[in-house]
């Protein structure tokens, strides 16, 4: 087998050194009843590289590739162009096949990259500090709620109706077991966010308010009144960013005094990948850093006085603190963080702003064009690169009908909020720099036909 270097002669020689008559003797501690006498039944034996490639390629062909059709899906995962350099660099074996940098003298590459990543993320989100990544945006969001509980010693979190429904589901799952109380709501198919209701709901038991920016329908709201209201009650404001490219065009949540800002970093460097692996972003105010979950990289010096980097503040973490840790997280999303960081470095501030501008301009054009389709109404007057349409009839079958015509039209609110009649007519449409004017025209034309 091509991945196994030992030869039969090696094995014989090594067994002699060990003093074992046969490899089975090394498994002597396995109780007789649990020993298998041959390969497990019902599974095929080994295969050549060529055969495996054929098998996997056949499976891959059974999927509709986003890049091959007019494509408008977002809702927490966005299709952006990733420069070829990114994938080349993350496949360097020294990054790809390294472990968590627990031996810093021979892991400065990963550590310096993480220090750069943390700085990039903090600046992008407008926070003082950021960690070395979480699994994804949804788990980062839940961890932020847990962090707010530890800081405020209160157990009630108020979640905006504009928060991604999967993120809400994750929080609900966890809250059921940790005893946190969650107040949740559905979004309204309207231009208005629920900021006023959130402000009214904050009380002396509230640990945090969680709001997505831009929200699940694409709406953008000024978070400053919400931050002030939360702080007046000694609660925290947690902002969730699922489209980091938006930070190239918008005031950041940190600038609006959010205490913790988490996000999904997939847009930069990572690609769609059918939902994972992605990379969770996690930033906060400096005063809360010791309550942060996850790994942190910090600057220090070596014995010769040269600058170097190490994992630090690990007394928060499970391998030191065990059951008293701030989180059970261990492995994070290092390679995706690298991809994010390289893409951000290639863009730079000028490139990120230009990219954000192109996304916004494309979305404005698409929103105008699609709103001209008879029966279609633009629900969200202000947005970044994602907006919501009211189709005047149930959107989910329309999306399926358009898929049959080779157009991936967006995410229906029926898919995100099944059974909610008040939202069923909503379609969330995302437009990025990868969307062409022809794509928009194809969608508009097909939508008109299907709706008629």
């Amino acid at each position, binding site marked *: 087998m091509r*991945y196994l270097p*030992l*030869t039969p002669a*090696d094995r014989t020689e090594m067994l002699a050194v*060990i003093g074992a008559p046969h490899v089975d*003797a090394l498994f002597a501690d396995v109780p007789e009843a649990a020993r298998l006498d041959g390969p*497990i*039944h019902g*599974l*095929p*034996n080994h295969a050549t590289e060529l055969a*495996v490639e054929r098998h*996997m390629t056949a*499976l*891959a062909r059974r999927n509709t590739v*986003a890049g091959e059709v007019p*494509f408008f*899906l977002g809702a927490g995962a966005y299709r952006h162009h990733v*420069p070829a350099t990114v994938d*080349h*660099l993350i496949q360097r074996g*020294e*990054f*790809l*096949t390294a472990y968590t940098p627990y031996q*810093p003298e021979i892991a*400065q*590459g*990963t550590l*310096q990259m993480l*220090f750069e990543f943390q700085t990039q993320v903090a600046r992008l989100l407008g926070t*003082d500090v950021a960690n070395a990544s979480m*699994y994804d945006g949804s*788990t980062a969001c839940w961890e932020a709620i847990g962090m707010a509980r530890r800081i405020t010693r209160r157990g009630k979190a108020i979640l905006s109706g504009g928060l991604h429904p999967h993120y809400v589901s994750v929080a609900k799952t966890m809250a059921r077991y940790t005893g946190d109380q969650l107040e949740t709501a559905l979004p309204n198919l309207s231009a208005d966010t629920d900021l006023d209701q959130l402000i009214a709901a904050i009380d002396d038991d509230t640990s945090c308010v969680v709001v997505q920016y831009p929200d699940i329908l694409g709406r*953008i709201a000024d978070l400053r009144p919400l931050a002030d209201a939360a702080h007046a009650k000694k609660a925290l404001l947690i902002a969730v960013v699922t489209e980091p490219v938006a930070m190239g065009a918008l005031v950041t949540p940190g600038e609006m005094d959010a205490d913790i800002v988490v996000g999904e970093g997939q847009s930069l460097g990572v690609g769609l*990948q*059918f939902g994972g*692996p992605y*990379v969770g972003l996690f930033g906060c105010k400096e005063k809360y850093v010791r309550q942060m979950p996850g790994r942190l990289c*910090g*600057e*220090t*010096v070596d014995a*010769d006085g040269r600058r170097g980097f190490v994992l*630090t503040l690990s007394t928060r973490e499970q391998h030191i603190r065990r059951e008293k*840790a701030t*989180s059970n997280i*261990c*492995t994070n*999303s290092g390679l*995706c963080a*690298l991809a994010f960081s*390289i893409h*951000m470095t290639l863009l*730079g501030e000028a490139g990120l702003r230009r990219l954000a501008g192109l996304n916004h301009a494309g979305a404005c054009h698409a*929103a105008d064009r699609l709103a001209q389709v008879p029966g279609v109404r633009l629900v969200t*007057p202000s947005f970044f690169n994602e907006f919501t349409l009211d189709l005047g009839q149930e959107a989910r079958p329309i999306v399926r009908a358009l898929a049959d015509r080779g157009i*991936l039209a967006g995410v229906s609110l029926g898919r995100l909020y*099944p*059974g909610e009649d008040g939202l069923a007519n909503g379609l969330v449409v995302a437009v990025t720099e990868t969307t062409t004017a022809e794509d928009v025209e194809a969608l508009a034309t097909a939508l008109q036909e299907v709706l008629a």
Partner: protein
Amino acid sequence: MTINQSGWKPEMTASDAGTAPATFTGNRALMLEEPLIFEIGSTKTTGVDFAAGDVAHDRLGDLTRKNPIGLPGLAEPEAVRHYTRLSRQNYAIDLGLFPLGSCTMKHNPRLNEKMARLPGFADVHPLQPVDTVQGALEVIHQLAHWLVTLTGMTSVAMSPKAGAHGELCGILAIKAALEKRGEGHRRVILVPESAHGTNPATAAFAGFAVEDIPATADGRVDTAALIARLGPDVAGVMITNPNTCGLFERDLRTISDAVHDAGGYVYCDGANFNAIVGRVRPGDLGVDAMHINLHKTFSTPHGGGGPGSGPVVFSDALTPFAPLPFVERQGDHFVLVEEENAGDHHADSFGRMVAFHGQMGMFTRALTYILSHGADGLKQVAEDAVLNANYVLRSLEDVLDAPFAGAGPCMHESLFSDSNFAEGFSTLDAAKGLIDEGFHPMTVYFPLVVHGAMLVEPTETESKAALDQFIGALRSVAERAKAGDPSLKTAPHHAPRARLDETRAARKPILVWKEPEAAE
């Protein structure tokens, strides 16, 4: 065939050992110092060309960004050089043996990478209509079938993002099962003291009280103590098998039966599944839930700390409580079971743990690896992994203290202690000495049950020649530690950095770069 049969090795010349002159750049030939992007980049530089186009539309309300962000850019050649230079300061499996115990640093096949990048997997959105992602769902279904069959379990939850997330998945299923039975008052999870730190952290995160179970003198769970502690307040146990001392828990079946009789559940930490894959099925040992680190046993890359993937296999008893989503086959069609169609037969699911459907990019890699090995190859994986570890153990037990070596063979990792080192010398010194020898050190100071633990897991993808060189290097370092060689206290001498001041880093943390004038 053995490469380098003649045993050639480079000779160190006198000038290598002596003091080399300082260089203008601080570089040392191929060892290149690299500044931070913030020190070499400019916010006006970009390494990406954009299409011409109008960006004048503005429907951002009054929230248009006004302040600078402070993100430097590099032109493409500068960026390639920056990250390539950084990469060369890392040790990696591609460079050599990476003997981190309990981490299973095996070769990462490049076919896996190629398959994961097929556009049909890499460029597919998780919320596309299910009719347009049948191949992706079939990948998940095929991998699930392999994992269930290899473990002898009933079902598998694919969505957990990493090992610790998988632990959480298993523990939440146990909690949901207890609540369904009206026994939510069972609040105690028993955890052996040799467990990974994630085990107690996970149990606590899910609201359980954690109680330690001691180890016996031969490095295994104290079965009698564990059984004696069982009772109406115990929700279950979390047990690692093979355990973190590299030993098979012979009594696991007995423990499982006792836990079940007492109304609890058995969680198995599957971090060390590589030792038994294809040879032993955890389902035959009475396990109710076990996570599988695809980034260990099934060769998906560690990537400098993730992403991982931690599917959890379940017994009959816990299957109804498995999290959403999952994939089911209905004739020729694959269905994604989510909140809306969980329906009657999945009504007890404890809910969703992540947005979307899990680590698809890791699933394609793991399935590629599994198909490559097949059932016969995976069995050989376990055998060679165990053979390599025992070879290391028996080749070094004369020079290093091996606390459990007398009791019999180890599994996939061999455990040593620093108890015979000279006064003032410890495991840390041996680890740093190994760095100078060109190896990543083994896992150190874990498990906690052994003084100055050194846990060596060579994996099955090492040749005998590579093992012999590693054994020679560790023997040399151990002898220096026993002799009290003072140069070991200041090792590493040849790495990109000398020992780093971790205390300073933690005392006044510098977690982000600041412009020099703003630094004070």
